[in-house]
């Protein structure tokens, strides 16, 4: 047991390097997916049929393709058409785009939950569509979308391990590398699992708080 602990503490510094990359990938792709998801949701809400179709098509296509395939596509196929990215950039953009489809659905649910009557009331005092979006719909939609948003954050933290497949040296990838050279799978992946759990716990707590706070609307 003490021997295992000694080995674990030898691996830990390498794994912690991966932790920072994991956090960076998660936070940055969360940002990308939020902005992009909001964009798709608003596009889908507009009255322009072409915009709605674009939004719907994008969401359907992205949700129908495994995230790992999307990552491969961005990292391995894009260079063929002259778009070169580092593995880290490809990871963040790939995860951001993939998750924007889920974020969009999340925001859409929030937007659609707003009572039609409120929108009419806003119209009746002369508000434009963009003003209605900004002043009436979004402030309430955010509140409704917040609890599922918390869950999305946890999913993204865990799914950030997918970018290991395109050589981003995040936690899972670091674990694989150590395991490959030491054959100490048991210690390494137990450690990796525990570290993910430790990162997820505060997010889980946060998500639960959000849910409790905004359940009654």
């Amino acid at each position, binding site marked *: 047991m003490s021997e295992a602990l000694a080995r674990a503490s030898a691996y830990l510094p390498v794994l912690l390097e991966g932790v920072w990359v994991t956090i960076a990938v998660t936070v940055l792709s969360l940002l990308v997916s939020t902005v992009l998801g909001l964009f798709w949701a608003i596009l889908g809400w507009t009255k322009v049929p072409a915009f709605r179709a674009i939004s719907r098509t994008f969401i359907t296509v992205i949700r129908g393709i495994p995230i790992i395939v999307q990552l491969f596509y961005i990292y391995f196929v894009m260079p063929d058409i002259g778009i070169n990215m580092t593995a880290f950039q490809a990871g963040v953009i790939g995860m951001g785009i993939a998750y924007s489809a889920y974020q969009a659905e999340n925001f859409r649910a929030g937007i659609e939950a707003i009572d039609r009557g409120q929108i009419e009331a806003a119209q009746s005092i002369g*508000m434009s569509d963009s003003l209605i979006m900004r002043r009436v719909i979004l402030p309430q939609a955010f509140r409704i979308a917040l609890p599922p948003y918390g869950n999305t954050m946890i999913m993204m933290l865990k799914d950030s391990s997918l970018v290991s497949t395109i050589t981003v040296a995040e936690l899972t990838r670091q674990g694989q590398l150590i395991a490959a050279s030491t054959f100490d799978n048991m210690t390494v992946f137990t450690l990796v699992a525990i570290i993910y759990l430790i990162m997820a716990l505060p997010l889980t707590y946060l998500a639960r708080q959000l849910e409790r706070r905004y359940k009654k609307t």
Partner: protein
Amino acid sequence: MISVRDIHKSYGSAEVIRGISFDVEPGEVVCIIGPSGSGKSTILRCINGLETYQKGDILIDGTRVDPEDKSIKAIRQRVSMVFQRFNLFPHRTAIENVMEGPVYVMGMPRAKARELAASYLDKVGLGDKMDSYPDNLSGGQQQRVAIARALAMQPEAILFDEPTSALDPELVGDVLGVMRQVAEEGMTMVVVTHEMGFAREVADRVLFLEGGVIVEQGPAGEVLRNPQELRTQSFLKRVLNPL
């Protein structure tokens, strides 16, 4: 100032408004009565551009109401609306609800809008509820906030769509009282209502709608006390003596 000319509207094959025309003069209070499904709310919503219409014209001082056109925003600033279900913004306090239009639509400085909103909330008897959220107000109070919100746009006319139908009976009086006060101050009003007492005492003119047409119209006293049309008579009998 409001001119409705031969309006037709259908949902699919069902024609809900089949040629309605009437004019509302400045300062006039017109009540629209009639059974449910007669098209009375629909015509009001058409005037505010919340519904499209297939045929005819609705003119506000000569400007045609067209929900698809940019001019609709300016028209709505001149003609406000009060809804059956109040439709307050639940994430904003009473005074914020009233300030919303002046600040964000009319571009009024916040301090001035707050003063204006406070004066209208005082007027509707809610000076002590300014910082309450709609959820913490009774239906009658919410509707009075909605009236203050409509007034704060300083409109030339206000449309009321069954403003007391969603209220508990004991709360109806407060709302009608505020509406009467607004009418007495000279506001042009079109009121869709089932409150015959209000129509009799406050309205200058009553329109009786059934099946998407105006069956009878005239001075409130005449139509309500001495209806000429059989359908008006039977409707009034049902409303006034439900048992």
